[in-house]
């Protein structure tokens, strides 16, 4: 493999993972834009989504069939059930844990979100102990689980090529890109999207205009959760390993992406996600895998410290 080929290969991996990170980052950025809450449990919601995906894969027996020629038909039920589950779960958590704290000091919902995150992690641990084939019959619940290939792994550029592009990468872009476009259009043109923007700008004024603020916030959690669910299906089928503590790691990547792009900004989340994805891939290749997380956190700290509004965000003035 020549140097250029290595670079190109890492770029492809980075962009694919970046798209997934961006999809999760959208959930952070939307919720933060509207209620100014860092939804700490978002990454762990994503983790629960991937566990549900693996459970469905086991129930449908997709791990028994040989690798499909293109894409297994099983991804259809996955892409319906998992986002639905994550969306409703996120909505329910908001209803029960965050909504009663809307008038509380700002740190109260954040602490509550940390609590929810811990509960989710624990559910993930128990979920890993499920007595199913895909979960290794519940033995060693805490250890990482293999996620079977539900997309063909053959190289689209031909067997002779050093650079590998599979249907997997196509699948990642084919799912994430339309979702992002749909979200952008929905926020721009639909009634609920307009209401979301209004609440994000000024909740009191929005309420005075007859917008049901709680409903809008609920819808935001629902949509953000559903996106995390879709991301978890794509992530698991792309990376093939899931474990109950991955929500923290992936969630921090996504949050860093959201902050880097400018929290509250939808295009910012996409840009931030791609940048973080590429930086991770490059750091894995050219620095060392064990330093990658340090690199990402260093970026997070540097951005927050010197440009807290991110790359695309408008500089926010502190309201008095």
């Amino acid at each position, binding site marked *: 493999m020549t140097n250029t080929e290595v670079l190109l290969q890492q770029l492809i991996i980075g962009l694919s993972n970046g798209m997934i990170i961006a999809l999760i980052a959208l959930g952070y950025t939307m919720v933060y834009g509207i209620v*100014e*809450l*860092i939804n700490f449990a978002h990454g762990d919601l994503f983790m629960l989504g991937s566990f549900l995906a693996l459970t469905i894969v086991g129930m449908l027996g997709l791990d028994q069939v040989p690798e499909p020629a293109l894409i297994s038909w099983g991804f259809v039920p996955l892409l319906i059930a998992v986002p639905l589950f994550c969306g409703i779960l996120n909505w329910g958590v908001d209803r029960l*844990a965050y909504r*009663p*704290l809307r*008038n*509380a*000091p*700002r*740190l*109260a*919902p*954040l*602490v*509550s979100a*940390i*609590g*929810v*995150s*811990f*509960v*989710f*992690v*624990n*559910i993930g*641990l*128990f979920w*890993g*102990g499920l007595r199913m084939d895909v979960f290794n019959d*519940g*033995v060693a*619940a*805490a250890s990482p689980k293999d996620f079977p290939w539900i997309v063909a792994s053959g190289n689209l550029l031909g067997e002779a090529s050093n650079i590998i592009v599979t249907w997997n990468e196509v699948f990642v872009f084919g799912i994430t890109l339309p979702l992002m476009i749909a979200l952008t259009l929905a926020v721009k043109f639909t009634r609920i999207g307009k209401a979301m923007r209004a609440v994000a700008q000024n909740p009191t004024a929005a309420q005075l205009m007859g917008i049901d603020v709680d409903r809008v916030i609920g819808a935001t959690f629902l949509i953000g959760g559903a996106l995390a669910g879709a991301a978890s299906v794509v992530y698991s089928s792309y990376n093939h390993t899931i474990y109950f503590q991955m929500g*923290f790691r992936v969630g*921090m990547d996504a*949050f860093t992406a959201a*902050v880097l792009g400018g929290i509250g900004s939808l295009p910012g989340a996409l840009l931030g996600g791609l940048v973080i994805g590429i930086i991770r891939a490059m750091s894995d290749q050219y620095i*060392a895998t*064990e*330093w990658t*997380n*340090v690199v990402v*956190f*260093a970026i*997070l*700290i540097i951005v*927050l*410290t*010197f440009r*807290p509004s991110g790359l695309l965000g408008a500089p926010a003035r*502190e309201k*008095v």
Partner: protein
Amino acid sequence: MLDVIRRVLVLRAGWFLLAIALVLPLVDGFLPREYQFAGLMRPIFILAILGLGLNVVTGYTGLLNLGLAAFMAIGAYSYGILTCDIYPFQLGFWTALTLTIGIGALAGIVLGLPTIRLRGDYLAIVTLGFGEMMQDSLKNLESITQGTQGINPLPSPTLFGYQFSTEIWVPWYYLLLALLAAVVLFSRNLEHSRVGRSWIAIREDEIAATCMGVNPVKVKLLAFSVGAALAAMSGALWASYLGSTGEPSNYDFQISIIALCMVIIGGMGNISGVLLGAVVMIGFNSIILVKLTTILAQKGLIDTQNVLTVPSNWKYMIFGFALILTMRFKPEGLLPSRQVQAELHEMQEDARARKKNCAK
């Protein structure tokens, strides 16, 4: 009558806890062996110092620091490097402890200088990121920190020529208790000093405090530094108690969260509250769960093949619900400081009044 007991508990909780702690080793000897727990109290004393450190930052000053474990790690590793015989320093316990506290304070300033101006939730994330970076860096810088092995063996402390040993726990118990008492005293004096009052003023209303001549950056930085110093102290004590720094992942996010739980569940900004929080949280984590596991194992109720039957697997769930329920129903904690309680209730009343007006 109940009211009197309640008031004594709230106002004199510190003395009450101290009295119990002093006689505990004597009483403990009469319990049957598998129920003895006083030796297990030592982590409570060490981590209570960590909680008091967080109390300065979060409780008094209102800054959420989610990376306290990093400063604890700095303390543990500084202490390890200063005392262990594979390094050139090989200092004694007391010199190393003093230096470690200084290093912790310095580290707090170094992290605080660029970040202290950030808004509350951003600061929380930056400190969290710092904690994770510290853990990974300690793991990766093997040539300095021995990587995942940790630095060991560390020498036991000496006091007036008496050599502590790992086998006899009673002297350790009183040493740690005395150090905790010193930190409590320090914290209490600090709270009522000029600095402490400006911390609380910043927490209550930063703009008003600034108008009154409090320099917010300087005051917050000082809080950050004191918090970091106390965290480093608890790290050094932890390392000397274990005789090893342990592996870097011992100082992970979970430690920061346990400290946060102590402060929040116990009562933000109130020393007795934090001590009670430490007893509840660490007592649950390292006494009740440990004892429950032994007892259940003796009765043959633990099936290692089934995650649900191992008590420690429920830990995250219980911590999580504790945080959620506290925020929902008693955000001021079990033993709140009077100011925090008054403030929170004012806020609730405001919200209720607003709702009523809307209904009209």
